[in-house]
């Protein structure tokens, strides 16, 4: 077993993000579903405006960690943090002063299976604004257009905003979900295997979109697809059996990983 502190991520930060304070700081995190511990002692920093990819075999806890970042795990019965802290912009997420509603506005999430609401395209994007109580049609219209443009969907759907979102293709649906997330102006976007249900062409478009969003947002992507991690991420974290094995520049992870386990996984010896 490796000691995670050996691979302190701070030692290998890209120069572009070095001067920044980490946006997300995870320290000594233990996470349990009931009695079943799924994360062990995870330490990880994620920096502003970088794309961080979580890779690892199924059940390694990467999705769980992602869902911890906007406390979606609150929904799961018996899910709890055993030990350690998650801080976003220096604030402990599990502090009593943190309103989970406000947190989720700042930390948006895109799910594995595209899950637009069975409403019109427009209503899907406007949803986050409407539940915040924004009534002005002008503001919402602007925001909807802006979000759809950012998610590269505007040209495809501008003529059928009032049609049901389920009339869109899978890739479009997933981009719509991203647009929906962008509309509430998050700072961090969590993506849980966003392309796992998409064909290669749609995947390509979504990846393109993610790369474009890097300019403005901190993005954490969980992926099974190592090529995808390689294509889009700045840094990659490899998880195995609930432990963070290694986190480093993506290039380094793929070309010259420090740990044997990482190399074995990357080269397809297991997983």
């Amino acid at each position, binding site marked *: 077993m490796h000691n995670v502190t050996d691979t302190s991520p701070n030692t290998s930060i890209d120069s572009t993000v070095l001067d920044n304070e980490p946006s997300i700081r995870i320290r000594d995190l233990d996470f349990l579903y009931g009695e079943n511990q799924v994360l062990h002692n995870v330490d990880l920093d994620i920096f502003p405006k970088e794309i961080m990819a979580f890779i690892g075999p199924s059940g390694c806890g990467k999705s769980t960690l992602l869902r911890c970042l*906007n406390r*979606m795990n609150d*929904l799961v*019965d018996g899910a709890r943090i055993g030990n350690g802290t998650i801080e976003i912009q220096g604030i402990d997420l599990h502090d009593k002063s943190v309103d989970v*509603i*406000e947190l*989720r*506005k700042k930390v*948006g*999430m895109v*799910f594995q*299976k595209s*899950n*637009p*609401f*069975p*409403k019109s395209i427009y209503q899907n994007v406007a*949803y*986050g604004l*409407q*539940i*915040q109580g924004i009534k002005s049609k002008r503001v919402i219209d602007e925001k909807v257009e802006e979000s759809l443009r950012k998610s590269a969907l505007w040209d495809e759907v501008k003529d059928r905003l009032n049609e*049901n979102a*389920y009339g869109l293709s899978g890739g479009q649906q997933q981009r719509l*979900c991203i647009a*929906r*997330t962008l509309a*509430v102006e998050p700072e961090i976007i969590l993506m849980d295997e966003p392309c796992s249900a998409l064909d290669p062409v749609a995947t390509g478009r979504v990846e393109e979109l993610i790369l474009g969003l890097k300019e403005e947002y901190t993005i954490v992507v969980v992926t099974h697809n190592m090529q995808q991690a390689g294509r889009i991420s700045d840094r990659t974290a490899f998880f195995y059996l609930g432990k963070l094995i290694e986190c480093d520049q993506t290039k380094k992870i793929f070309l010259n990983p420090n740990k044997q386990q990482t190399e074995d996984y990357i080269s397809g010896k297991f997983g």
Partner: protein
Amino acid sequence: MSDHKNKEVNPFSPKLSREKVQENLMFGLFRGMTYFVLFCAAFLFWDILSKGANKIFEGDGLINWEFLTEHPQTLHVIGEGDEEIKLSSSNYYKLKDEKILAKWNLFAKSPGFTSNLSDLDNEMIELQKEWTEKSLQFTNAEFLKKERDNISNKFAFWSDLLTDINASARDFEVEPQEIPGLVSEFILGHFEKERSRLPLVETKIILFRAQQYSNIEEPSLNTLKEIEKAYNAFLMKIPETYNQAIKDFGNEVSLTYEDFTLLRGPKEFGRFAEALVAYETIRRAFLDIETKNWNSIKELIIPFKQAMSVSLPSRDYAYSGGGIFPAIIGTLLLVLGAMTIAIILGVFCAIFLAEYGKPGKFLSLIRLAILNLAGVPSIIYGLFGFGLFVIFLDWNVSLLAGWFTLAFMVLPIVITASEESLRSIPQGFREGSLALGATKWIMIKTSVLPFAMPGILTSSILGVARAAGETAPIMFTAAYAKRSELPWEGLEHWTDFFFQGVMALPYHIYVVSAKIPQNEYTSDMQYGTAFVFLFLVIGVASLSMLLRNRLRKKYRW
């Protein structure tokens, strides 16, 4: 042996085995049972539809609208066999009235009788003219003397009248030519006086209004005495010729005003009769009674009595006539109210169970309770409603009590169905909503409930429609066997609406099937009601399907 040979040749030739027999037997059983169920269902529907159709498609029109729009009534059956006419109470009496009126009209046109009020008025005027002309033929003194001689022996008041006239003529020094007018005025005035002084004469003399006294069964001793008393008074007040009339027709004369069983008929008839009576009284006061032949009066009385006694013999069957309109309305009201209450309570409960409740002992206990509630017999719900709503909360037998009882009865169905519908909504909608910063309630409101609604509504409406067919829960709490007012009639305050009992189809079927003597006519009523009820339930069910399909189309995923 070719058979044997074939067996050798064909390895797939059929072999009789235990398994094969079993297979055939079981297949036959499955099919037989299914066909049996099908047969029973077909028989049930055929029975209700064919027998119900008797009532629904009875009569001249395509549909027997009366059955759908009338109150339940007694059925009067006139005649036998092919001649048989079935009439509800209201139609029966309408027919009777029509017959009376027709006879009256016929009678009124008979010789010697004025046919209508204006004719009467005209005759009055004629009479006055006649009187005036007659009086002009005499000088003052001659006229009065002649009249006194003529009439004083016959009408006691007549002589008083003439004395009065004499006295007035003297007092006021009236010129001879003014006398006739005065006389006529005095006579009228005197007559009015007589009217008030002798009300008996006024009312008893009314032979025209007489209904056969013999029609009144066993008059009480008091009535008899009163009749005798009035009769005697009557005899004293009227002239001999009238006495003769009373002797002839006495036992057929109703003697006090109240004793008249007023004939059913148009209101005009009453007014007409009254005018006629007034007219006849005046006429007798004015005319020389001897010139009016008693026989002609007799001629009038007899046809009148004949005209008045319309006989329309019928066999009567309670509850078998008319329609079921109040029951249809009552059932619809019960269904709507119970549905509203059940859906509100049920959906709230289901939301708690499905979205908020943390799995644990408490939740299992609630679920167990709900499951048990579903198994409680409907009569127990009836008793529960009776005890809680009718007695304890003092709502009486009322719509409100029925609503709540029915609602509680379907609550288990509604809760279970709603919970299932809520759980069938993809978790992704919830997560998507929460990840956009929605609170739990907003999440439920915007991205769970709207999509679960089709399922909730369909199962709930179906459940309530089913419960609407139950008799037991409403028989103690909401249903009346018969109520002549519709729910919106005769309300003093709008809240009274909720505290009134109603008629209901299932209870009506129960009443006409179990509470009244059975015969072919009641059976028509039972099946007719069942027919309508069946279609009502089918209607509600299809409505719910329609609603679901519409909503589904709106929210597809």
